[in-house]
């Protein structure tokens, strides 16, 4: 007979109770069957000696010090494949989000924090800090070059802040900032089908790192600014390029 080893002393988890209080049905967080389907299909399993099942078990056993300190919460992408695979639909990503949010803001990864802050500091909510006037200048510059150099595209057009357009098209900052020519194929497609669309100078950037930073207040600020951008122009659709 081997000796019994106590790996952890079970405790009540203040963290888990708090998250369960926030979620409908408690996020099913107490219903884990420990089957491991989450971990077997998770690309983050094994990184920093952690996986989704282990993370949930540590929560269930009240190991808050470990749960709230492991950098693994930044290595889970919150892709929700574990929820999709789980027979009990346990919302582990929501738990990850709450664990991220429990980190002091200044200790969260600098790159994500910087991207969120840039978005907060620009009217277009650009995580790369692109100013709206630069976005418009780059787009119009590229457009002029296409019209002048590509036969058949003399009528290609791009508009900004055009009220009443059917679609408000957002754009990942990466295009105007690092590869503006990548916008052209999209414009050509929209032109070919006669799509009625516009860009805006407010809230135009497609990315939103404040959510990934788990900064609720910043996330809400960004979402509200983007909603205002579309509503002020009276567009019927907010169109994402992906």
């Amino acid at each position, binding site marked *: 007979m081997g000796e019994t080893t106590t790996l952890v002393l079970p405790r009540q988890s203040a963290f888990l109770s708090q998250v369960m209080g926030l979620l409908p049905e408690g996020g099913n967080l107490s219903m884990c069957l420990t089957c491991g389907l989450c971990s077997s299909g998770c690309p983050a399993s094994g990184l920093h000696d952690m996986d989704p099942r282990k993370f949930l078990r540590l929560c269930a056993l009240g190991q808050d010090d470990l749960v709230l300190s492991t950098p693994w919460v930044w290595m889970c992408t919150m892709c929700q494949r574990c929820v999709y695979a789980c027979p009990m639909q346990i919302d582990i990503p929501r738990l990850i989000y709450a664990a991220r949010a429990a980190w002091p803001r200044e200790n969260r990864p600098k790159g994500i924090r910087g991207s969120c802050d840039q978005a907060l500091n620009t009217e277009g909510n650009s995580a790369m800090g692109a100013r709206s006037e630069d976005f418009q200048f780059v787009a119009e510059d590229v457009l002029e070059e296409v019209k002048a150099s590509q036969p058949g595209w003399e009528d290609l057009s791009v508009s900004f802040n055009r009220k009443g357009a059917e679609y408000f098209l957002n754009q990942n900052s990466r295009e105007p900032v690092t590869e503006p020519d990548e916008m052209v194929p999209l414009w050509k*497609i929209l032109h070919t089908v006669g799509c009625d669309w516009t860009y805006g100078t407010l809230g135009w950037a497609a*990315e939103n790192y404040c959510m990934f930073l788990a900064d609720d207040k910043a996330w809400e600020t960004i979402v509200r600014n983007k909603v205002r951008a579309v509503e002020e122009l009276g567009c019927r659709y*907010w169109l994402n390029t992906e």
Partner: protein
Amino acid sequence: MYAIRAGLQKFQITPNFEIESIIRLYARWIREGRLTVNSDWNKDLGVTFTVQDPCQLVRKSFGDPVAEDLRFVVKSVVGEEHFIEMYPNKSNNYCCGGGGGYLQSGFTEERRAYGQRKLQQIVDTGADYCIAPCHNCHSQIHDLSEHSGRHFPVVHLWTLICLSMGCLGENERSYLGEDLASVGL
């Protein structure tokens, strides 16, 4: 897109507009005959493609119906016989590891380790190209391809749509491999 959809829910905002994905519109426009794509350009070339199902778009937003739209567009553009599925796929697809802020987080080594599963999935298809219709997926898979030394091209969907319509300009080909660099020019 997910950040907006989830944000509207979380912060209880009811907007006066709807949220749409260009992938669904591409499919509708092709079905309606407004976007006249075809795969003739690839008949003799026989270049093969696989496609990444972005988590934010498929599993986390519109589910398998948008994954079907994505396949319809891809097959219309490259030819059904030149499309190869990854497994698992659609709502059950693996995340590439570019999401969740990973690319910005500074955990580069971990991000690439995470991406191994995606890389292997792509390599197992034997496809020449991977289509990544999401910016984070594109950046991550491109990095996985280059860093692993496999150097398979990773392309945006709009590039192939314009290529198939014969209107892809000279400066709009950064992500095409040498085999397609001058097709339709």
